[in-house]
């Protein structure tokens, strides 16, 4: 495991055709999920915040695929729909949460940023930038105490590195040998602020240098890379019982939230190279090259996924709103 700030050229994972097809389908599901979600926001069914995961799929899907969810746990940030899908939550329940319905992941009480599911070992969703980093550290410490080899995966954005709790938490995790993988999803922006305007160093692995912890920067666009890195890193964390910090380089396609117009602060030209390295495209091309799927099959899969999700949207719409008395439930009065 590298402790330098040099990007590590990881081997692409060599997976079975079936697995690769599944991964493509999962990333497609996230992409289509967000498209439909944004549509429903504009239709007025979703209110408040909507942070799309489009463009970042290879990070979440790669890392979560490598987890052992019988014993590992996730603590997430607010951009959480994609991760909810990746751990296997049903899109019906995620949409239902976004619609504020009883069938929602959090019974309609949490909303977009506050999905939680004990059964899937998904401990949130969090609206406070960096708010989950210390919680995840505690989860990792608990897993260590439990002694079953479980680890915690903690996702957050590049903006979270500017919060003091990032620093405090990494220091404690290193001091206490916590089995945790901190994954910074560096999508180049903290809301409208480009990396170099909010971070004194723009190689974010360098900002995590002060904790005696292994760090690694990886390409977050190629799921072959993220999955291989994840498998290798998780094995190391389980064995060594030491925390690791990962910087996954990726890009946020949409604005920060649904109301944000990113072309107020960035140009289509700078988006171009990222869109050319689209995670779905990269895996799709590989499947074509390796003759696992044809372009037509991929497009058919996309349509199938989209149709499935349309049905999920409809199913979610059928769920009733919580009953008024539920306002006062789940809290001691």
């Amino acid at each position: 495991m590298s402790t330098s700030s040099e990007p590590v050229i990881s081997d692409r994972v060599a997976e079975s055709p079936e697995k690769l097809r599944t991964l493509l389908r999962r990333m497609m599901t996230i992409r289509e999920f967000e498209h439909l979600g944004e549509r429903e926001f504009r239709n007025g069914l979703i209110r408040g915040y909507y942070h799309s995961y489009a463009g970042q799929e290879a990070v979440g899907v790669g890392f979560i695929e490598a987890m052992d969810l019988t014993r590992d746990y996730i603590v997430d940030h607010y951009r959480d729909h994609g991760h909810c899908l990746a751990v296997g939550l049903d899109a019906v329940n995620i949409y239902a949460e976004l619609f504020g319905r009883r069938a929602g992941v959090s019974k309609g009480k949490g909303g977009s940023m506050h999905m939680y599911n004990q059964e899937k070992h998904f401990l949130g969703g969090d609206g406070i930038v960096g708010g989950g980093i210390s919680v995840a550290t505690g989860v990792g410490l608990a897993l260590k105490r439990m002694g079953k080899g479980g680890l915690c995966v903690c996702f957050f954005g590049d903006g979270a590195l500017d919060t003091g709790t990032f620093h405090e938490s990494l220091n404690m995790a290193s001091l206490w040998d916590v089995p945790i993988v901190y994954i910074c999803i560096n999508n180049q922006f903290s809301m409208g602020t480009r990396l170099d305007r909010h971070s004194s160093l723009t190689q974010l692995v360098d900002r995590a240098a002060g904790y005696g912890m292994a760090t690694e920067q990886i390409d977050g666009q190629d799921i072959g890379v993220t999955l291989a890195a994840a498998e290798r890193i998780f094995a190391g964390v389980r064995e060594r019982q030491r925390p690791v910090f990962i910087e996954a380089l990726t890009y946020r396609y949409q604005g920060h939230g649904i109301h944000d117009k990113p072309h107020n602060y960035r140009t289509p030209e700078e988006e171009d190279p990222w869109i050319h390295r689209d995670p779905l495209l990269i895996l799709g091309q590989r499947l074509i090259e390796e003759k696992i799927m044809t372009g037509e099959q991929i497009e058919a899969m996309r349509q199938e996924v989209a149709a499935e999700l349309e049905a999920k949207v409809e199913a979610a719409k059928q769920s009733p709103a919580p009953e008024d008395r539920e306002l006062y439930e789940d809290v001691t009065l």
Partner: protein
Amino acid sequence: MATTTPTKTKKMAMHEALNQALREEMLRDPQVLVLGEEVGLYNGVHYVTRGLYSEFGPERVMDTPISEESFVGVGVGMALMGYRPVVEMMRMDFSLRAMDQIYNHMAKIHYMSGGDLKVPMVLRGPEGPGPNPGLTAQHGQQLTLLFAHCPGLRVVTPSNQYDAKGMLKAAIRCDDPVVFLEPGPLNNKQGDVGEDDYLVPLDQAEIRREGTDVTLIGYGASVALCLQAARELERSGVSAAVVDMRSLRPLDMAPAYASVERTNRAVVVEYAWQSYGPGAEIVARLMRDAFWNLEAPVLRVSGKETPLPYAANLEELSKPQVEEIVSAAQQTLK
């Protein structure tokens, strides 16, 4: 603090009124500067700092990283040096990250230094469930109380666009640290704003509506609810006065006392959670100083005591309702 009454007014959103206040003060005094998340290049998430970055440049309109505790501290440090920083919290919820700087530094340095140092800064941002619905539990809280309890701070909140401008200008010119709470639900609402350079005092409550039967007392966004309730009460023949507290620290009770002397009844209305909310202090003062004038217990209508839920029906329920005010007022008249 001198109040001047402006000659001309113009309709605009509260965020525009606040923007005018900032701009005028920045033009007037080069020591005034603005800092916070996305206040500059992005033009401010709630539009309050719109245009300031291009007009005044990055030295006076500073985009900060997501480091609330420390950029409040940066504000304190600049204030100690004679600047007049206006520190924006994108939402006041995030000031929970900065509570140590606010309580232990911003508020106390003047006192702890035996008066040797001053901290003339403003901490401002939107609070409560708005302007948009669906803010959920960590983004739509009304934490007024946390500031109001802290000696050394001034804590004010405008209920309308006109005051928003005049009070923010007064806050910037004040030598004390001021927490300026912008009612989220009003951010995009239109109203008349004076076009001149006018100030609204930071320590004076105001009667918004005269009435003889019951006094409705609110602050910030709840004043509009009181006015609505007063109109509904009028239909059933009840004459309700409305008092806008405007400042919570110091708390100017005189207009409320005067009104209650006539009405002998009061209802306190707020978006904050009821238990230990700011309204409790208003009730406790009425208890102490207006007890002998009261013909019924003072009641409260407040936000419901749960984290702010997401589902539309629950969110709506969680807010103080005009009907609740009307029925509380009627109850005091029974």
